[in-house]
């Protein structure tokens, strides 16, 4: 199967999953009605039609778009990190950025959001979402600043990786401390957040995320060449004319900014970053980023949409935690990668 054919299939997959994610949800809406809502300019009045209209445009569409952009951004971040660190288990959270975001959100929800049993959030809850989003961005940004600072002075990526790991441990232990002192209501709100969800975005959020993802694609394309050089390691890359420090900063910043923003809007979404690049390499049969990068973007979108689809299983009014599902998909893939051995897996 030629490479172009594979890309075509992957694109079709994204398209199909995107549509499915809009057509299927816990509220039963007839297929043709959904089509009409999406594509016709008719106005609806009253009754079921109005509810369906609201559900499709206010809930399903933002959710599908969020899943798509999150999948694209997180899997791209994972690819960048795996290439930079030449480590198959790296992902967008490897530098402790998402742990920083987690900690900031825990701070907001568990400490500032007071309340007795039965209550979840308190006085600041009117701007609850704003605070949570802001905290996540600030937390991610803070850790990113420190990582970039260290990256300037440290040549070895291994040290950077270890530093990120330590940051992650630190942030997580601080969260444990906060949990220890939290009340049951606050705890539930925080735990709910850690499940991850593509469903809490509004239409304006959706537009922002789309623009962000589109903007992200430009540097991504320009990074294909240096990332291929990185396949040989930093030393060879430098000898071939790559500004190693500059590329490092760009890779780290790109990954972290997007991962931070996604974490802010969707909670911590795990595994997509780590697992998808491996699937992409397997599907395209090469480590060449000219093919792996676009494949990663397409597969990332597909995986996220697929996970979202499952978490909103039709007919069942509840929601399954997103992170449980991404892990269920992600873990077998990671195990498969390790089982194949590092050579055939296509990355050191």
């Amino acid at each position, binding site marked *: 199967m030629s490479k172009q054919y594979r890309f075509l299939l992957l694109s079709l997959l994204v398209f199909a999953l995107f549509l499915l994610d809009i057509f299927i949800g*816990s*509220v039963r809406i007839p297929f043709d009605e959904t089509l009409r809502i999406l594509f016709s300019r008719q106005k609806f009045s009253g009754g079921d039609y109005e509810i*369906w209209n609201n*559900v499709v445009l206010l*809930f399903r569409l933002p959710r599908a778009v969020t899943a798509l952009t999150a999948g694209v951004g997180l899997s791209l971040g994972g690819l960048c990190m795996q290439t930079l660190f030449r480590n198959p288990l790296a992902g967008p959270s490897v530098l402790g950025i998402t742990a920083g975001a987690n900690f900031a959100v825990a701070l907001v929800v568990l400490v500032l959001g007071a309340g007795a049993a039965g209550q979840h959030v308190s006085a600041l809850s*009117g701007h609850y979402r704003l605070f949570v989003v802001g905290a996540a961005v600030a937390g991610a940004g803070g850790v990113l600043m420190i990582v970039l600072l260290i990256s300037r002075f440290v040549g070895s990526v291994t040290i950077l990786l270890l530093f990120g790991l330590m940051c992650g441990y630190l942030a997580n232990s601080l969260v444990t401390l906060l949990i*220890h002192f939290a009340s049951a209501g606050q705890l539930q709100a925080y735990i709910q957040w850690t499940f991850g*969800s593509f*469903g809490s975005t*509004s239409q304006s959020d959706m537009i922002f995320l789309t623009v962000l993802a589109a903007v992200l694609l430009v540097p991504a394309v320009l990074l294909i060449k240096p990332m291929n050089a990185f396949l040989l390691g930093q030393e060879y890359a430098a000898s071939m004319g790559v500004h190693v420090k500059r590329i490092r900063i760009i890779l780290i910043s790109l990954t972290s900014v997007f991962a931070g923003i996604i974490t802010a809007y969707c909670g911590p979404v795990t595994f997509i970053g780590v697992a998808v690049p491996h699937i992409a390499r397997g599907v395209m049969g090469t480590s060449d980023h000219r093919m792996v990068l676009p494949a990663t973007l397409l597969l990332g979108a597909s995986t996220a949409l697929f996970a979202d689809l499952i978490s909103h299983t039709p007919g069942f009014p509840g929601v399954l935690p997103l992170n449980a599902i991404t892990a269920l998909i992600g873990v077998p893939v990671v195990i498969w990668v390790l089982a194949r051995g590092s050579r055939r897996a296509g990355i050191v």
Partner: protein
Amino acid sequence: MRIQYLLSAVLILFCCTMVPAVSALDVEYAGGFSVIPGEGFSILKVHPGGEKNHRNEITYFIIDRRRKDSTRIRQNLRNSYPGYSDLHFIEVPVDRFILLSSTFVPPFHYFQCEESIAGIDSIDNLYDTQLKSRLKRKEVLEVGNGPALNLELVLAARPKLVMVNLIEGEWNMVPRLEAAGVPVVVNGDYLESSPLGRAEWMKFFGLLLGREDEAQRRFDLLKERYQSLSAAAGRTDNRPSVTLNIPLTGSWVVPGGESYMAAFLKAAGADYLWKDSGSSSSLILDGETAFSRSVAADIWLHQYGIRSLAELAAVDGRFTRIKAFRNGQVINNDARTSSSGSNDFYESGPYQPDLILADLISIFQPELFPEHTLYYYRYLE
């Protein structure tokens, strides 16, 4: 299990051989505890989850310490069960409590026993202003709860009784307290799914504070008011549809159709949108399901800590499409909240279901009690 059978045997023995004292404490609505009178003592059984549920059942022997023969009674009971080292005795009236939940505080006011509170779990979760000032003056200790419980402080306070909620797992304080030799009594009031059942736990407090008659009288009055209010609401034809709560991170948690809140809504003559869910536990709904049903709701209650309609819209713009929002029928139960975020609706509310019901009826059926001023509830502007 064996102790249950033995207790019944003792009971029959006593009942047959002596004239039983008539207990003032008939428990009609609450399923979580029952009181069995004995000669010179009572048996208090706490069985959260219902009488048939023996899993978490705990039995306490209540002995009136004011009686001259209290020591003899205690010894008799001990002798009846040789080999049982874990009989729980409580000598009432208890005059020194540590309460590990702010929801235990209100009855102490009703029976004027505020001085009996020596410790509370947290000042932030407390609404009661009098207790708060006593805490600030260090007359009452703050001892923490859950993994953060300060056992040393508890022991140093020398409580006669520590009252805890029954919670499973890490937050279950009973084994820790018992291991430290602290006398514990379990309170299961929050598991009640009927408003009167939950209010009836004031009799539990009455028993422990030596005020059974008062408790009974108070509850009877309360019951009457509640039932007449409910009957008045039932006579109207208007049944506005009601939705509750707000979603967090996409999921919308609502009380089940057989739950405490649902019972209130039914008694107040409302049509709770999930009244047919058939269970008392909460439902976790995904955003679109909950929204598609809530969008046509006439009235919307309980928006956590939200202060205004603008704030509500800021949380999620989709809320503005809900009918109740457009008609300004958004009412929060936080009219009585402290600066630390504690809400009296959950503290004194359970013991004043008649007030809650009156509030709700005045919201759902405004023509019935036009002079009523809302006590726990507040319209969002």
